[in-house]
């Protein structure tokens, strides 16, 4: 098998919940040795909540689908960082690492000794990636926030939802997983920088600022025209019809986006309603936008008696963007995602054989990425403290007994 890009790179991963683990998952799948530093004193949140189900419905620190599907291909050791000796051991791990990822609030990171000056003293060319809601500087340097809170601060929900509603979050705890990819972009950039200059780097990422970069139109519309973005349902200024329409079946829907006049005529014919083409109410984009409710009602009459796949195929055949709104079962059965090997099965020692989302994107020189099941909590204590740090079994045992390795 060809070598993976990050083989030989070690990552000390103090992150938890979603963004940081999503970042280190990218590095792990690409060959890095990612060591999660966890603790039984305060187990990683995703091990303890029902975010992705528990194996066969039975809760347990090693049975959570949300955790296991985000932390595979990584190792786990345990250290209670509230203990001074544990913080020393963490520094020993960092000394042998290339990248450190942490997602604590500012004051906790300080208490645990995970600041850049402290890490540089231990390992001068270390790359430290700090992930937080609002960054590690400024009056709110110590704010604690999770995905929905970050979205809200960045104003994303104020412009999401049905027209006239107060606003809503998006699905999939958006943008947490995406922030993880943004973090991976920074971590890889850090590695590349160190490779070229020999110097380390502190990268201080604010999740809210990631979101701001994804709503430029709304931000600039406020500056340019004083407009405060509101929830707009599925409306789009450049397309009509543009919506998600009810189909045959239980809670089945199809998304349709008509992006020009040619596509509009193609839709009319594919739907078996050439008379819509001649209808004045739908003559051009602005007419169709003015009469969107009537248009939506007509289209729904057509989609309602067809399956979503059927509508997709009919419209795609004539060059109109369309596809089903997919729930998780649909997703797993999606022929395109399956063609791209986006789902893999792994045997987890406690959770059993389970299906997991693989790493996205296909690399021609990387036929296979690194996959092994998510670690049990502290599964690799011997590997980390014994093999990596060279501690004796006796030492490990006594520190375990003392609650340092815990």
């Amino acid at each position, binding site marked *: 098998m060809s*070598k993976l890009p990050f083989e030989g790179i070690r990552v000390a991963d103090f992150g938890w919940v979603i963004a940081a683990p999503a970042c280190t998952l990218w590095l792990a799948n690409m060959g890095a040795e990612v060591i999660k530093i966890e603790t039984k004193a305060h187990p990683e949140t995703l091990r303890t909540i029902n975010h992705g189900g528990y*194996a066969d419905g039975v809760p347990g620190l090693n049975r959570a689908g949300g955790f296991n599907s985000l932390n595979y291909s990584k190792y786990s050791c345990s250290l209670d960082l509230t203990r001074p000796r544990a913080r020393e051991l963490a520094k020993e791990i960092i000394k042998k690492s290339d990248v450190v990822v942490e997602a604590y609030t500012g004051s906790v990171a300080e208490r645990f000794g995970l600041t850049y000056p402290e890490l540089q003293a231990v390992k001068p060319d270390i790359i430290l990636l700090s992930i937080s809601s609002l960054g590690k500087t400024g009056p709110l340097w110590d704010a604690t926030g999770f995905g929905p809170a970050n979205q*809200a601060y960045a104003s994303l929900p104020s412009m999401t939802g049905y027209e006239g509603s107060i606003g809503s979050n998006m699905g999939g705890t958006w943008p947490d997983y995406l922030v993880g990819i943004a973090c991976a972009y920074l971590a890889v950039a850090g590695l590349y920088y160190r490779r070229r200059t020999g110097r380390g780097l502190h990268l201080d990422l604010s999740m809210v600022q*990631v979101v701001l970069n994804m709503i430029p*139109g709304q931000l600039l519309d406020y500056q340019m025209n004083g407009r405060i973005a509101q929830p707009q349902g599925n409306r789009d200024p450049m397309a009509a019809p543009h919506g998600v329409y009810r189909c045959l079946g239980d809670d089945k829907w199809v998304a349709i986006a008509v992006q020009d006049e040619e596509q509009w005529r193609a839709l009319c014919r594919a739907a078996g309603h050439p008379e819509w083409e001649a209808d004045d109410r739908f003559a051009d984009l602005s007419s169709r936008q003015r009469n969107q409710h009537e248009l939506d009602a007509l289209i729904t009459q057509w989609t309602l008696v067809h399956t979503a796949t059927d509508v997709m195929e009919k419209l*795609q055949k004539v060059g109109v963007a369309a596809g089903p*709104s997919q729930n998780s079962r649909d997703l797993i059965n999606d022929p395109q995602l399956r063609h791209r090997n986006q789902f893999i099965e792994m045997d987890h020692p406690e959770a059993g054989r389970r299906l997991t989302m693989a790493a*996205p994107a296909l*690399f021609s020189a*990387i036929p296979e990425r690194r996959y092994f099941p998510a670690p049990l909590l502290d599964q690799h204590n011997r590997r980390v403290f014994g093999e990596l740090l060279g501690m004796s079994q006796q030492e490990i045992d006594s520190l375990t007994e003392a609650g340092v390795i815990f």
Partner: protein
Amino acid sequence: MAEGILDGTRVIEWGQMVSGPWAARLLGDMGADVVKIEPPNTGDITRRIGPFPQDLPHPEKSGLYLHLNCNKRGVTLDLSTSTGRHLFRKLVQGADVLIENHSPLHLETLGLTYDRLRSLNPRLIMVSISPFGQTGPYRDYVGSELVIFQMGGVGYETPLMDVTDPETQPPLKGPGYQGYFAAGWLAATCALTGLFHREVLLGEGQLIDISEQEAVASMLRPNVARFSYAGEVAPRAGAAVGGVRFKPCKDGFFVGLGIGVTDDGWKRLRNLMGNPEWTTSVTFATLESRREHAEDADPFIIAWMMGYTKAELFDMVQRAGLSAFPMNNVADVYASEQLAFRGAFQEVEHPLAGAWRLPVPPLLSSDEQPSLYRRAPLLGEHNDDIYCQELGYTREDLVRFRQLGVI
């Protein structure tokens, strides 16, 4: 700091709309020399989307374009002409990375597939972004932000709140181009991974095939897990529980205050509210039970919240170590002291569009250099720079290219 990371790296962006241009901008943010190729006359489609100052459309004044194309130079080139393709191949010969987001069929028709380009430049990292990918049954399907977002599954459970009647309330898109941005971030991460791979191991480039649908779907790990682990399909209605709901306070809405939190969080919240009688109910004793009965507690929590403004509440909850935030709108964002302190917006002056405050790349830069160091290019602004000074064509050649409609 950040600007120097990709110094000396040449990126050619043959992009349009959001995903390709955003990926290229992320590399430009790190100091790569990005050359954006646009079709002559019309330019990138985002030039027509806006928003525009005073709502007056103008191809050089689109807010979306101005944001997506900072930190790049721009040339025009018509790839449907053979001279255009010849110039394109010359540009690719000298590039480290090519980012493009045209349809796979279009690439084939033009003869600009990875196999052809690799023979010109084996060190080339080609990042191809398409709605569904370069191969597979949906390869030639047409995409759009709405369609890839729904087919990627995040759309199915958007909006997270407010779905009370799934029969009549459709799944929604996110604001603007969330799916396209996701694909752009992923593409930039892939490009950097490819550069690192080339540097340390391979010595040569590769093709990186990105599907926008897959970029969105890859965010839905927990839903796939839930299906495999517990046999459950994540529902559309009632997906938002407890603290994730927006609740009113004196002057707006707030998120994160609810009882469906960990034992520790519940203790902090009770203390903050002054341990009122209702919180002692056995119904709220365990996490599972709190989750189940989250809505029963909402009226009590809201009654308490209504006594405070967003700002007061934010101060109180952050002091208490609770994870709860105000629901801001775009005006609040620009007024945030924290974001101002971080320099989250940088005023970028443009000769035709004026000066606007754009969000900077999301990391703190310790460098003196502004992170948006180059405004978005005018259409074809750098034709001279690139074609004459770099590729060695004469001014006369350029005139001829213009006459032929190549640039």
